[in-house]
């Protein structure tokens, strides 16, 4: 479809418009049609990942060395920590998630991407909102509401940028090629619907017309928890449900289970957020309902875990030869872990110990980093070569990226879990002074900074590798779908040792 024959936005939005469906499109043509918008979202997401990583390191060091950059007002902990949170949540995770969503939607709709300029405009608005919001936080204009610290004057830009993506998603779905709607598409369409609902509601209730008292906390945690479960999780699972079967060349183990997993997530997740307020001054029934719903989350999580594991059964050797698979399978395993942990965290007895400790931070990173970010890295390893037309430059850099992430995550989880547990036990002991508890956490916080250094190395290595790809300095091998079909690991071993 040439630009001249491409439908206008008005035509795409018109209920009566009946486009010609291009059937049997080559996969390479579809991929190429997504090139500009997807690379724009990927490039900017990596920029925000690096910015967020720097903020993370500063915040982490300040926790055990408070004097570090202590005399620079815009780098005080109260500003750098929310700047880290918002740049990684909205700048990195949402942006890369949208990029992956665009690519997957075009592939799964089996049609060329429509309205790429609309997506480029969305990318511009979204990033403008991020720049203004981040500068606002650093300048002292934070709203002080966790996960929503961007000042009110930046959020309309974010919302407008997102709205264009949402509208584009509906258009793509409407004009998809006929056939079955694959489970990944269900997740993606749901995420595109859920995010404006979450973000719009919370902006209205906390920023535009703030509700009063403890209701603020309920709304806040309803958003903070659901943005993970109904925005990032569907995008991450959509990618896992597509890439795992696609890379190993084997259909999902049980498609019945995947449908059950999707609909049970849609039914139960929305109720979960209030379990973060156990013991707080909110109506008991709200918390009880949340605990029950959290427990019900065992259903979708178990279903997804069984499905992914059984799909991979007999194919685990491919982890040695596929970068995409290695990252995504690690992410999928962490999804199971973080979700089971989340279910358990809803219990009142467990909450007594972990609440207000580093364990909550560990849980958040297990979800946002070990699960979502790793799945996104894996997706990018698959997608980028198909957009720029060459293979990744160096297997060594990919392995360095993976292992730095892997050990960084493991170290962070160990230190924050043990440190959080020690901290929680101390807080529950009336004979332990607060000073002693604070001092007891310092070694664990130093451990967390060390893990941050590993993750920082990983991010800069990946960004460098990505820039090489953007400059087309990768390996000029293969065609649009690339890769020299390493059907058997033995064949692969001839060119590259399969050492992990």
């Amino acid at each position, binding site marked *: 479809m040439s630009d001249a024959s491409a439908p206008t936005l008005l035509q795409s939005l018109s209920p009566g418009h009946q486009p010609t469906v291009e059937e049997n499109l*080559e*996969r390479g043509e579809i991929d190429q049609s997504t090139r500009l918008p997807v690379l724009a979202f990927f490039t900017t997401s990596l920029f925000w990942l690096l910015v967020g990583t720097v903020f993370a390191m500063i915040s982490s060091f300040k926790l055990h060395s408070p004097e570090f950059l202590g005399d620079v007002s815009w780098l005080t902990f109260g500003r750098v920590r929310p700047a880290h949170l918002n740049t990684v949540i909205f700048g990195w995770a949402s942006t890369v998630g949208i990029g992956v969503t665009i690519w997957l939607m075009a592939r*799964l709709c089996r049609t060329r991407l429509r309205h790429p300029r609309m997506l480029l405009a969305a990318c511009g608005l979204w990033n403008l909102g991020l720049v203004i919001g981040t500068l606002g936080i650093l300048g002292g204009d934070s709203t002080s509401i966790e996960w929503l610290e961007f000042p009110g004057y930046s959020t309309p830009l974010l919302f407008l940028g997102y709205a264009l993506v949402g509208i584009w998603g509906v258009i793509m779905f409407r004009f998809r090629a006929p*056939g*079955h*709607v*694959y489970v990944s598409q269900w997740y993606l369409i749901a995420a595109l*619907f*859920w995010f404006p*609902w979450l973000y*719009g*509601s919370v902006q*209205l*209730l906390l920023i*535009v*017309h703030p509700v009063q008292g403890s209701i603020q906390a309920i709304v806040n945690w309803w958003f903070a928890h659901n943005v993970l479960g109904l925005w990032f999780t569907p995008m991450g699972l959509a990618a896992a449900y*597509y890439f795992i*079967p*696609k*890379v*190993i*060349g*084997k*259909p*999902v183990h049980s*498609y*019945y289970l*995947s*449908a059950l997993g999707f*609909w049970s997530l*849609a039914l139960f997740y929305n109720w979960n957020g209030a379990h973060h307020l156990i013991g707080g001054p909110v109506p008991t029934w709200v918390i009880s309902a949340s605990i029950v719903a959290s427990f019900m989350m065992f259903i979708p999580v178990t279903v997804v875990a069984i499905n992914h594991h059984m799909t991979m059964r007999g194919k685990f050797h*491919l982890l040695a*030869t*596929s*970068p*995409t698979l290695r990252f995504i399978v690690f992410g999928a395993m962490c999804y199971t872990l973080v979700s089971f942990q989340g279910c358990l965290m809803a219990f009142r007895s467990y909450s007594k110990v972990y609440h207000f400790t580093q364990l909550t931070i560990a849980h958040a990173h297990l979800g946002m980093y070990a699960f979502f970010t790793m799945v996104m890295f894996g997706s990018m*390893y*698959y997608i980028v070569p198909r957009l720029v037309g060459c*293979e*990744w*430059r*160096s*297997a*060594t850099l*990919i*392995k360095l990226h993976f292992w730095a992430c892997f050990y960084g995550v493991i170290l962070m989880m160990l230190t924050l879990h043990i440190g959080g547990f020690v901290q929680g036990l101390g807080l529950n002991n009336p004979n332990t002074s607060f000073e002693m508890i604070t001092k007891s956490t310092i070694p664990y916080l130093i451990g967390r900074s060390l893990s941050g250094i590993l993750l920082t190395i990983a991010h800069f290595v990946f960004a460098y590798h990505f820039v090489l790809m953007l400059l087309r300095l*990768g*390996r*000029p*091998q293969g065609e649009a*779908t690339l*890769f*020299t*079909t*390493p*059907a058997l690991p033995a064949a*692969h071993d001839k*060119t*590259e*040792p399969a050492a992990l």
Partner: protein
Amino acid sequence: MLLVTTIIFLMMAAFGAAAVVALCWAARTGQFKHMETSARVIFDANEPVGAVTDSFPPSQKKTPKTASKEKQS
């Protein structure tokens, strides 16, 4: 505040209704039928079931020239 409350309740109703409509649409259009064959829609003639579609790039010691020669042979 009344306006905000009304908007929120309308949004809740709209999104709740959208979920029900989506479920009904899926059932009506046969999305829950032939589940096992539906799992194969991501495969096609070029990338069939059984084809592995991702791997590490070849070792850096090999130049692109030698790698392409290898491929041709």
